[in-house]
C-alpha cells in the first residue's frame, strides 16, 4: 500500500511535469505562429497540458482536498474540480480519436465505402500535395458524412500528400465564394477540379483531373444569337463559366465566320442556343474539327417563341416597280433579288432571324430588323451595310418607312415604338422611343406621312390577346392624335386608305375593321375564324383586300362582300406565311413563308410570278447531325404531364425517377444514384430523336428522358398559340409519342469524337444553375468531363449492383394486417403483460 502511494505520488508529479512541458510547447508554437492558434504543435501542446493537469489532480484527489478549508467546502471544491477535470479528460480523449481519425468499419454487405485498388494505387503514387475542400451546408450533413468517409481513406493511403477540409458556405461565404454547395473542389496549386457527386468514381476522377493539371479549353461559338457568358444572373451563362472554372475548363468565345476553323487547342466547343442558322462554312469547320477526334456540346431551343431554326423565309418586300425584292430569313441573312428572281446580294451581319425587311420609298436603301435586337440599313444596290440604328430595340415586330421617305418607324412586342429622321442620318426623333400600353405588332403611315398608326395586342411573348388599342400620333412632333381601345383580338396588320381618312385593319382571328381616323368610329366584320390565324393583310390597286392565312393560303377578297365564299384563293405555299407586303403602287405583292420560299404575285394573276429560294430552309448543322451522327433535333415542344403536377407547367420537363436517366452513362449515372436522386429541370425543351440504326461506329445513348409513357409525355409539333397545352392536344398522328429524349450523347469509335446534344439551352442558364438542389450543374459538368477528358477517366467497377427492394410487396389486405398487428397487437401485448404483472402482484399481497 505504501509502495503504491509513492508510485502514485511520483506519477502525479510526472503528470504535472508533462503538463508543464505541454504548456511550454503550446506557448512556443503560439509565439512562432505570431499568436495564431492554428498549427498542430499548439494543439498538441494544449492537449498535453490538459492531460497533465488532469492526471495531477485525478491521481490523488485527497491531496487537493487538504488544500481547501472547511469540510463541506473541501468536498464541494474537490467535486467541482474533479468533474471539470474529468470532462476535460474525456473531451481530449475524444479529440485525439477524432484527430487520429481511425479507419471506419463498414458494416454494409457490399462494403460500399471500400476504396478500389485503382484509387489506392493512385493515392500511393501521389508526388505533389493535393488538397480537397468540401462545401456542404447544414442541410447537407449527410452528404458531408459520406464525403468524409471517402476522403478520410484517401488521406490514409496518400502518405500525407492528400489533405481535406469542409467549409459550410452559409457560415463562411468568403471562403466559399465561387464554389457551389454540395461539391468538393480538389486543388493542386492553381489547378482545380470539382466533383459534384460524392462517390468514389467522381472523387477519383476529379483527383485524376487535378493531377493531369492541363486546363482544358472550351470554345463558346458565337454569331447566331447564342447565350452569352457576359450576361450574369438571369438568362445568361455567367454561372457556367464559374462551374467550368472549377472543373478546370477555360471558356473562350469563337466566331467561326471570322476564324474559319476551330483552333487546334480546343478540347471542346459549345453551341448554346443558336437563334439563327449556321452558314455552310461553319458546319464544315465543325465537322472537320470533330473528325479530329474532338468533342462538342450542342444545345438547341424549340423553334417556338422567338428561337428559330426552321422558320424558312420570315420577311419580304418589293420595291415600287417590282425590279427589286428583298427577303429576310431565319438563317440570319437578308437577300436582295432582281426582277427576274436572281439573287443579287446577301446581306450578312444579323445574328438571329431577320424578322422584317423594307425598301425605302426611293428604293435605294433597305432596312432590316432582327431578333438579335438590331436594325440595320443597307445599300440596296451593293448590299453593303450603311448604318446600324440606335434606340430602344427589343423584340422588333415590324418596321416601316413613311411614303415620303422622311421617317422610319419600328414597333416591338415590348410595347415600344421608335421613329428615326431618315434625312438627318437616321437620328431618333426627339419624342422617340414612344412607350405604349400594348405589345405592338404593326405600324402604318398615312399616305402623306403626317400620321403614324400603331397597334398590336396580346402578350410580350407573342401570344394573341382579346383586346387591343389603336394609337395615332403626329409624325413630326409625336403629339397624341387619337387613342382608341378596341375589344377585338390582336391587330396584326393595317393599311390607310388612299385618301388617308380610314385605317383598315385585320385581326389575328380574322376580323376586318375600318377605323375613321378623325372620329375614331369603328366598324368591324368577321370574315375568318380564329383557327385561320391571319398573319398579313393589304389593299391592292383594284381595291380588293388580300389576306395571308396561317395554312399558307392567300385570299383575295372583294371589299363589299360579306362572306368569304367569293374569295380567290391562291394556294402555293406549303407552310405558314409570315409576311405579306403590297408594293407601293398596289399592283403586286410579295409573301414570305415557313416553307423556305418567298413568292411575288401580280394582281389579277392566279399563279405566282416569281419564286425565290435561296435561304437555307433547313439548317446545315441539323443535317450534319442527322447524317453523321444519326441524331435528329425534332421541331417540337416537349410536354410532360407528370412534371406539371410537380412544377405547375407541362412544358417544363423535370426528372423524377432514376429510370428517366441512362443509368449506364457516366454522365447521368451519378445523378440517378445520388441520394436523394438529383433532378434536372428543363425550361421549354424540344425532343431529340436517335436513328434506329445510327451510322457505322457511332454509339448513341439517350441520357435524359421524359417521365411517363404514351399520352403522358410527348413532343408537341403544333403547340396552341396561346401556350395553354391540354392532355387532349396529344395527336398520335403528328406528335412524337413519349417517353422522349431531352439529351443524347454520341461517340464515334473510329474518330473518337464525342458529342452531347440537348433539346434546350435554358437549363444551363444562371437561374437554373444557382438552384443547388437541382442536378443541372452536375449534368453539365459530367457532360463536359465526359466530352473533354476521356483519356484521363478511370472507370471503377460498380460495386452496388442489384437494387434493394421489397420483392414480395404487401397487397391490399396484407397492408391492413400489418397495421393491425404493428399498431395494436405489439403495443397491446406489452400493455397486457403489464396488466398481468400488476394483477398477480395484487393477488399475492
Amino acid at each position, binding site marked *: 500500500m505504501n509502495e503504491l502511494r509513492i508510485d502514485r505520488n511520483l506519477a502525479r508529479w510526472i503528470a504535472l511535469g508533462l503538463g508543464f512541458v505541454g504548456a511550454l510547447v503550446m506557448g512556443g508554437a503560439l509565439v512562432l505562429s505570431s499568436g495564431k492558434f492554428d498549427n498542430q504543435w499548439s494543439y498538441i501542446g494544449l492537449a498535453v497540458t490538459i492531460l497533465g493537469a488532469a492526471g495531477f489532480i485525478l491521481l490523488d484527489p485527497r491531496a487537493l482536498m487538504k488544500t481547501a478549508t472547511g469540510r463541506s467546502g473541501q468536498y464541494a471544491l474537490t467535486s467541482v474540480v474533479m468533474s471539470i477535470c474529468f470532462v476535460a479528460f474525456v473531451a481530449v480523449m*475524444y479529440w485525439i480519436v477524432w484527430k487520429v481519425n481511425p479507419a471506419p468499419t463498414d458494416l454494409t454487405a457490399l462494403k460500399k465505402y471500400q476504396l478500389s485498388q485503382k484509387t489506392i494505387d493512385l493515392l500511393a503514387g501521389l508526388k505533389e500535395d493535393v488538397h480537397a475542400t468540401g462545401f456542404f451546408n*447544414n442541410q447537407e*450533413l449527410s452528404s458531408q458524412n459520406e464525403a*468524409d*468517409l471517402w476522403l478520410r481513406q484517401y488521406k490514409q493511403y496518400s502518405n500525407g500528400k492528400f489533405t481535406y477540409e469542409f*467549409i459550410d458556405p452559409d457560415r463562411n461565404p468568403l471562403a466559399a465564394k465561387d464554389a457551389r454547395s454540395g461539391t468538393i473542389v480538389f486543388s493542386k496549386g492553381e489547378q482545380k477540379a470539382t466533383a459534384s457527386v460524392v462517390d468514389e468514381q467522381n472523387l477519383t476522377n476529379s483527383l485524376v483531373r487535378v493531377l493531369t493539371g492541363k486546363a482544358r479549353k472550351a470554345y463558346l461559338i458565337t454569331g447566331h444569337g447564342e447565350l452569352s457568358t457576359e450576361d450574369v444572373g438571369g438568362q445568361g451563362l455567367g454561372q457556367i463559366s464559374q462551374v467550368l472554372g472549377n472543373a478546370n475548363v477555360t471558356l473562350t468565345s469563337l466566331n467561326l465566320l471570322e476564324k474559319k476553323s476551330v483552333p487546334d487547342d480546343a478540347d471542346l466547343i459549345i453551341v448554346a442556343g443558336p437563334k439563327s442558322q449556321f452558314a455552310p462554312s461553319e458546319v464544315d469547320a465543325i465537322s472537320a474539327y470533330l473528325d479530329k477526334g474532338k468533342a462538342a456540346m450542342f444545345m438547341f431551343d424549340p423553334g417556338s417563341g422567338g428561337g428559330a431554326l426552321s422558320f424558312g423565309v420570315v420577311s419580304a418586300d418589293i420595291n415600287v416597280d417590282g425590279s427589286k425584292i428583298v427577303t429576310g430569313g431565319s438563317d440570319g441573312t437578308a437577300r436582295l433579288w432582281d426582277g427576274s428572281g436572281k439573287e443579287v446580294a446577301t446581306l450578312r451581319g444579323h445574328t438571329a432571324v431577320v424578322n422584317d425587311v423594307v425598301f425605302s420609298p426611293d428604293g435605294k436603301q433597305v432596312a432590316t430588323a432582327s431578333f438579335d435586337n438590331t436594325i440595320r440599313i443597307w445599300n440596296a444596290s451593293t448590299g453593303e451595310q450603311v448604318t446600324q440604328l440606335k434606340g430602344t430595340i427589343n423584340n422588333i415586330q415590324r418596321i416601316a418607312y413613311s411614303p415620303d421617305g422622311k421617317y422610319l418607324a419600328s414597333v416591338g412586342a415590348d410595347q415600344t415604338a421608335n421613329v428615326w429622321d431618315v434625312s438627318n442620318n437616321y437620328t431618333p426623333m426627339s419624342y422617340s422611343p414612344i412607350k405604349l400600353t400594348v405589345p405592338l405588332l404593326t405600324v402604318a403611315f398615312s399616305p402623306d406621312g403626317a400620321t403614324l398608326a400603331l397597334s398590336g395586342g396580346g402578350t410580350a411573348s407573342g401570344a394573341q390577346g382579346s383586346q387591343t388599342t389603336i394609337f395615332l400620333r403626329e409624325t413630326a412632333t409625336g403629339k397624341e392624335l387619337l387613342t382608341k381601345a378596341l375589344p377585338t383580338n390582336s391587330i396584326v396588320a393595317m393599311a390607310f386608305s388612299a385618301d388617308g381618312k380610314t385605317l383598315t385593319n385585320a385581326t389575328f382571328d380574322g376580323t376586318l375593321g375600318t377605323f375613321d381616323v378623325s372620329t375614331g368610329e369603328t366598324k368591324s366584320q368577321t370574315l375568318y375564324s380564329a383557327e385561320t390565324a391571319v398573319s398579313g393583310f393589304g389593299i391592292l390597286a383594284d381595291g380588293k383586300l388580300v389576306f395571308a392565312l396561317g395554312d399558307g393560303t392567300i385570299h383575295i377578297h372583294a371589299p363589299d362582300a360579306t362572306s368569304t365564299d367569293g374569295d380567290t384563293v391562291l394556294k402555293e405555299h406549303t407552310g405558314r406565311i409570315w409576311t405579306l407586303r403590297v408594293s407601293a403602287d398596289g399592283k403586286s405583292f410579295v409573301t414570305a413563308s415557313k416553307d423556305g420560299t418567298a413568292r411575288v404575285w401580280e394582281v389579277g394573276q392566279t399563279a405566282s410570278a416569281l419564286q425565290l429560294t435561296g435561304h437555307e430552309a433547313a439548317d446545315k448543322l441539323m443535317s450534319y447531325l442527322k447524317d453523321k451522327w444519326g441524331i435528329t433535333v425534332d421541331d417540337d415542344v416537349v410536354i410532360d404531364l407528370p412534371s406539371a403536377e410537380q412544377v405547375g407547367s407541362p412544358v417544363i420537363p423535370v426528372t423524377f425517377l432514376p429510370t428517366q436517366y441512362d443509368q449506364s452513362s457516366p454522365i447521368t449515372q451519378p445523378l440517378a444514384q445520388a441520394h436523394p436522386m438529383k433532378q434536372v429541370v428543363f425550361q421549354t425543351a424540344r425532343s431529340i430523336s436517335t436513328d434506329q440504326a445510327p451510322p457505322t461506329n457511332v454509339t448513341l445513348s439517350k441520357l435524359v428522358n421524359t417521365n411517363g409513357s404514351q399520352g403522358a409525355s410527348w413532343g408537341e409539333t403544333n403547340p396552341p398559340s396561346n401556350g395553354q397545352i391540354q392532355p387532349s392536344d396529344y395527336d398520335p398522328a403528328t406528335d412524337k409519342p413519349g417517353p422522349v429524349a431531352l439529351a443524347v450523347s454520341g461517340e464515334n469509335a473510329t474518330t473518337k469524337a464525342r458529342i452531347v446534344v440537348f433539346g434546350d439551352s435554358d437549363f444551363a442558364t444562371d437561374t437554373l444553375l444557382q438552384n443547388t438542389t437541382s442536378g443541372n450543374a452536375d449534368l453539365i459538368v459530367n457532360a463536359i468531363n465526359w466530352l473533354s477528358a476521356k483519356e484521363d477517366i478511370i472507370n471503377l467497377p460498380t460495386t452496388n449492383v442489384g437494387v434493394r427492394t421489397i420483392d414480395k410487396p404487401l397487397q391490399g389486405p396484407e397492408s391492413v394486417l400489418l397495421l393491425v398487428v404493428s399498431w395494436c397487437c*405489439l403495443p397491446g401485448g406489452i400493455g397486457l403483460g403489464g396488466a398481468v404483472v400488476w394483477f398477480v402482484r395484487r393477488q399475492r399481497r
Partner: protein
Amino acid sequence: MQTIGRSLHNLWVIFSHEFSLFFVSPVVYIVGAGWMFVGSIAFSYFFSQFNQGFSEPNMTNTVGFLSTFVLLFTAPALTMRLVSEEINSGTHELLFTAPVRDWEVVVGKWLAAWGVFTVFVLLTGLYGLFLLWRGNPDPGLLIANYLGLWLLAGAMLAVGVFASSLTKYQVVAFMVGVFLLFLLSYLNILGFIVPNQTLTDVVNQLTLRTHQDKLIQQGVIDWADVTYFVGIMSIFMFLATQILGSRRWRS
C-alpha cells in the same frame, strides 16, 4: 484485481436487482407500449414507401425518427425513478453504509435501464425481420441501424440517470432529463443562428444526433462517434456519482 472483481460483483448485484425491479412497476409497460406504438406508426409509414418502390428498404428512417423524437421522452421516463426514489424514500442513506461505492450504484442502475432498453430495441428488431422476410435489405445496414439506436439510447439514459440524481421528485427528474436531451440533441441549431465556421464545427461535434448519422445512414462505424457516445456515458455517470456522493457530506 480483487477490487475489480468486487466492483463487477457489486455491479451485477445492483444491475440484476434494478432490472427485475423495472418489470414489476407499470412504468416500463406503459413506456414500452408507447414506444412500440409510435415505432409502428413510423415503420408502417416508411414501409409503405418501400412497398411502392420509392426507396430502398432499411430501418434508417424509422430509427432516425425514434432517435430524433421518441427517445427524448422514453429515456428520461425509464430513468426518472432510479436515483430520485432512493433519495425520496431515504434509502440512499443505506447505500452510503453498504459495502458498495457510489459509482457502482449509479452505473449499475444505468446498466439496468440500458438493459431494459435493449429489450425495447430487440422488439423493434421485429420490423427488421419483417423487411428481411418480404425483401432484400442490406443486413449489414440493418445491424448498423439498430446499433446506432442502441448506442444513442445508452448515452441518453446516462443523461437521464444524471437528471434523476439531481432531485427526489421523479417528475422533476423527467422534465430535467427531457430538457437536457433536447439541448444536447439540437445544439447544432446554434450553428444555424450564429454564422461562424468554428462554432458550427464545435457544436456539430457536441451534438448527440450528428454522431449517429454515419451509422444509421451509411452503415459505417466511425470510431470517433463510438468514442463520443462512450464519452457522454462516462461524463454523465461521473457527474451523477459526484452528485450522489455530495449528499453524503451535505446532510
